[in-house]
């Protein structure tokens, strides 16, 4: 569908300067690669800079060191900035627009003619099983349905790079499971390069082809793990021995960092 794009991250660092306090080192010497057409999960404790890395990839933040570049696989050239779209934890749907207007918003901004953007939006809505809800407002939908609108709104842009910023963080466990299965199918068929930021080890294993484990602040890459579990993956996958092994490996690495982050969160908040 879209040209496969890899993302190469070399020596990436970001330091937030502060006048009153010591500067915050959000990311330090991050080296990793996001494979074209694959899902790569970024996992790590709160404040490890996962979302910051996503913002740098999106171009909303500039790194203070190192670089992040997009490489078109077909030509081997460094691409300018590929087509990107984000799915947000807080959904960020426009409450004054209906489902179809939300999904077609990006196309409308880009000046796509009405008939075409309506057709594409309807297709995307069908892909997330929301047909029949085109003219509802976000308020009228449950959390799970709202995030499916968010996914449709991103996929309708046919992004070469899809950024998933804790997409299911605000949803209950059951809804999350169903949406994980659905998203994994959609991403697979779209051929987009996806970065999934998550707190959930389960989510990372079920959705990702590769998992990058990050340390607590300053964010660094601790481990990169390829997930070779067969697709399609579902809840049943969690009973596989390989799943348990992966879970243990990641949990072992995260445990101390997460515990520390939890203590900071509960004590500092």
């Amino acid at each position, binding site marked *: 569908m879209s040209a496969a794009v890899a993302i190469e991250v070399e020596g990436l660092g970001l330091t937030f300067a502060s006048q009153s306090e010591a500067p915050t080192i959000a990311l330090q010497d991050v080296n990793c690669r996001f494979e074209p057409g694959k899902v790569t999960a970024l996992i790590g404790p709160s404040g490890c800079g996962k979302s910051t890395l996503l913002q740098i990839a*999106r171009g*909303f933040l500039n790194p203070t060191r190192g670089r992040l570049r997009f490489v078109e696989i077909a030509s081997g050239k460094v691409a300018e900035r590929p087509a*990107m*779209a*984000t799915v*947000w934890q*807080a959904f*960020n*749907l*426009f*409450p*004054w*627009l209906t489902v179809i207007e939300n999904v077609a*918003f*990006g196309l409308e*901004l*880009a000046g796509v003619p009405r008939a075409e953007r309506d057709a594409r939006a309807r297709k995307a809505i069908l892909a997330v*099983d*929301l047909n*029949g*809800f085109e003219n*509802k*407002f*976000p*308020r*009228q*939908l*449950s959390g*799970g*349905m709202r995030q499916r609108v968010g996914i449709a*709104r991103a996929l309708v*842009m046919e992004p070469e790079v899809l950024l998933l910023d804790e997409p299911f963080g605000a949803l209950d466990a059951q*809804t999350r499971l*169903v949406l994980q*299965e*659905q998203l994994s199918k959609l991403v697979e068929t779209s051929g987009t390069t996806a970065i999934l930021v998550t707190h959930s080890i389960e989510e990372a294993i079920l959705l990702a082809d590769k998992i990058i484990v990050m340390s607590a602040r300053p964010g660094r890459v601790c481990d990169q793990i390829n997930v070779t579990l067969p697709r399609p993956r579902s809840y049943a996958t969690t009973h596989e021995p390989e799943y348990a092994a992966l879970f243990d490996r990641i949990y072992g690495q995260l445990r101390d960092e997460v515990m520390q982050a939890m203590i900071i969160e509960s004590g500092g908040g």
Partner: protein
Amino acid sequence: MPNDLPLAEQTPIVETPVAPASASSWLDNERVLGWGSVALVILVWEITTRATGVSPLYLPRPTQIVVALFGMFATGELHKDLLVTLWRIFVGFGIAIFVGTALGIWIATSVRVRAIADMFIAMLYPLPKVTLIPLLIIWLGTGGPFMLTISFLGAIFPIVINTVLGVRQCDPGLVLAARDLGATPQQIVRRVLLPSAIPSIFAGIRLGLGVSIILVVAAEMVVGKLGLGARLYLSGQILETEQVFAVLIVLATLGIVVTKVQDFIDVKLGRWRLA
């Protein structure tokens, strides 16, 4: 499986409790109670003024007021005054909507403009606008430009202030989402900041129109030969008390109509909030 989802995720319909049947339920009916008490007050007013024989110069009977009201409309003088007043209010107010919203968005999106505007708003906003009438008469005379300016000044402050508030309260996540979908800064203003500020802007418009009406009527009382305010003042001067009441009824009706129209527009604009 996923096909079942939309239904499964819908919130269940909450059963509304059945209202207890009661024989005396008309007393609980808000509409009956409201209108009934108004009718009662008018009735008591009519009876006591007749019984006590109080001079209509002080307190005319409701029936006399109604007769005066119809009489003034019949000669055409009252609806001429009404039209003049409406014109004065709505031209200035209409300009204030456009200028106020644009200015508000500019103030909310530019740090420099905000720094400048904050000072002027802080100085001018607390000033009762009626106190500007003498100065405006010196500058503009008592004709159309004066009335238009006074109506404009009444409406602009609430509109600007509420627009700034509305725009600044916009969820930053929505701005990020729009940027992510490729919105230019202008598109963010028109497609995100403005619609998300609409409820607040409308609250400002509502307040502004109220002030405009007050100011125009007050200005007419001071200088006008035409308009409801002038009519009210002149009727008072010659002790035509039932005409004073008749004009008050017209002004009250104007207030009710304006409020109802605003409620209607509010509901139309706020579909997504009420849903």
